[in-house]
């Protein structure tokens, strides 16, 4: 069964088309990522599901039920906000128990449930603290517990890891994934970080200018981008211009190739001039210039390294060059 479906949903703010005719089908139990640059409409889509925005046109259903007339407080979804939005006048346990308090649960029952939820996000014993006494990562967990304690059917996460430092972010990515698998709740997760989307989600929708450009499994998005925007935005693939591709393959359309799939070779279809080298640890990033295109390769540390200004041949394995044929 579909957890969330969008049928030609639009949300316009005056002349701005924040969301423009989006079709979407999120399956129950799925970890779904909405990926895109800022202003691409992904957050507005999330707010449409939560009920903070009403669609200008189109039809939204949550578990088959049309939700056009349902205010946020009548939807079986909960949100983890980007700024966490913890209530500053309540301590941690009352923050987590807020939803249950509103639902009319007794003090003891709801505090027990909140304790369990805090335990689940590994914050047992933090109940008496104020949100202002917690670190960013801890606040993030409280926000998570506060949403999950209500047993939502869909959990919405708005850039939940954006404010955390790199190490904490990686740790939370793992934890979120584990939590989602344990609970079996549908997670819908907005991010502008392609690495985060690819590593966590079952499926990724790439947004640009209020539309969904491509939906698919992380591998599809990464290796088989359908348009140059996706190739470029998702981990900066090399995009070969149509003229070059026409010479190489005979097909007149742009093509994408991952930087780590480009190899230095004795002979190859492309000759390129080395314009820059930077050491990244595991790999070395090499920039090239060729026939009007700029390319990047990630060379493993044991591969022979060219020098700046060298003219080298580039090659790749069959199937690494992904043609982006225009959809008819």
């Amino acid at each position, binding site marked *: 069964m579909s957890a969330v479906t969008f049928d030609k949903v639009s949300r316009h703010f005056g002349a701005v088309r924040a969301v423009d005719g989006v079709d979407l089908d999120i399956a129950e139990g799925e970890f779904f990522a909405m990926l895109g640059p800022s202003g691409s409409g992904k957050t507005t889509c999330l707010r449409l599901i939560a009920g903070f925005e009403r669609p200008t046109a189109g039809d939204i259903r949550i578990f088959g039920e049309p939700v056009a007339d349902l205010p946020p*407080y009548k939807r079986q979804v909960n949100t983890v906000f980007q700024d966490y939005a913890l209530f500053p006048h309540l301590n941690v346990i009352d923050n987590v128990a807020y939803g249950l308090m509103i639902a009319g649960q007794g003090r003891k029952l709801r505090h027990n449930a909140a304790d369990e939820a805090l335990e689940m996000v590994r914050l047992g014993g933090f109940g008496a603290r104020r949100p202002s006494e917690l670190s960013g990562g801890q606040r993030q967990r409280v926000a998570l517990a506060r949403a999950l304690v209500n047993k939502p059917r869909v959990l919405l996460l708005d850039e939940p890891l954006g404010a955390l430092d790199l190490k904490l972010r990686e740790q939370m990515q793992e934890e979120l994934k584990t939590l989602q698998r344990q609970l079996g709740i549908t997670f819908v997760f907005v991010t502008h970080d392609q690495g985060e989307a690819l590593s966590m989600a079952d499926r990724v929708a790439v947004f640009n200018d209020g539309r969904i450009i491509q939906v698919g499994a992380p591998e599809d998005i990464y290796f088989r981008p359908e348009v140059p925007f996706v190739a470029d935005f998702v981990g900066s693939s090399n995009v070969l211009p149509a003229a070059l591709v026409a010479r190489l393959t005979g097909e007149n359309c742009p093509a994408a190739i991952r930087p780590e799939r480009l190899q230095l070779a004795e002979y190859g279809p492309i000759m390129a001039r080395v314009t820059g080298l930077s050491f990244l640890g595991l790999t070395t990033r090499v920039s090239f210039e060729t026939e009007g295109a700029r390319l990047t390769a990630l060379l493993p540390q044991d591969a022979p390294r060219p020098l700046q200004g060298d003219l080298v041949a580039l090659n790749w394995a069959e199937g690494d060059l992904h043609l982006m044929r225009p959809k008819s």
Partner: protein
Amino acid sequence: MHSDRAPLTLKLAAAGGLLFLHLPILLIFVYAFTTEEKSFAWPPPGLTLKWFAVTWYRADVWEALALSVRVALISTVLALILGTLCAAAVSRTRFFGRETISLLVILPIALPGVVTGIALRSAFSIADVPFSTWTIVLGHATFCVVIVYNNAVARFRRTSGSLIEASMDLGANMFQTLRHVILPNMATALVVGGMLAFALSFDEVIVTTFTAGQQQTLPIWMLEELVRPRERPVTNVVAMVVALVTMLPILGAYYLTRGTDQVAGQGK
């Protein structure tokens, strides 16, 4: 190189300034205990507590005090309701003329009291409104609303907008959100605004002289007492009481707002 110590001349100037500001207030307090009742002679020929008793049995003092307290209370309550609603409208929504309304609300405090007073007086006489406690209250409400409004607007601005969304996301409707999230977060700002409004109303003279008719608020009563000297130190006793009554809420407001920056603004 910079020295952390201030030069002696600067220290002297600062001390002089502070003395100039506060010595007269001290004098007022001292004269409340003098034995001489016609003129204020320095040094006081003797000290006595009898003026406190005299003041206690003066009906006109009690009347003026009662009126002042009543006016201040009503103006404060009015200001709390109107100021908060206005602040909510201005900071939570976007509408045509929003900036203008914001300016118009703040204007009374920028306007000289004389102008406000004359304007209200002529408006009352045109509309044929007889002077009463309520005309005084109206005059005071003009600036009390501003005080509450300013405090409330600042707090609304610092309160992360997503708190309201979070509350509704967790199942609370408008009224539950108002009761459980908005009001608790506004509480200190409203208490502070209310205290300041009360203090301002309590010692207001200028607007009151134009809108009071025959009634005397405490400050007006004091002004009258100075003109016709009779048991002069009574005025000083009252002045002392007024100073304490207005200073305490203002100091309280100051301590309440200190360090609340973190309380309402912590979103990020």
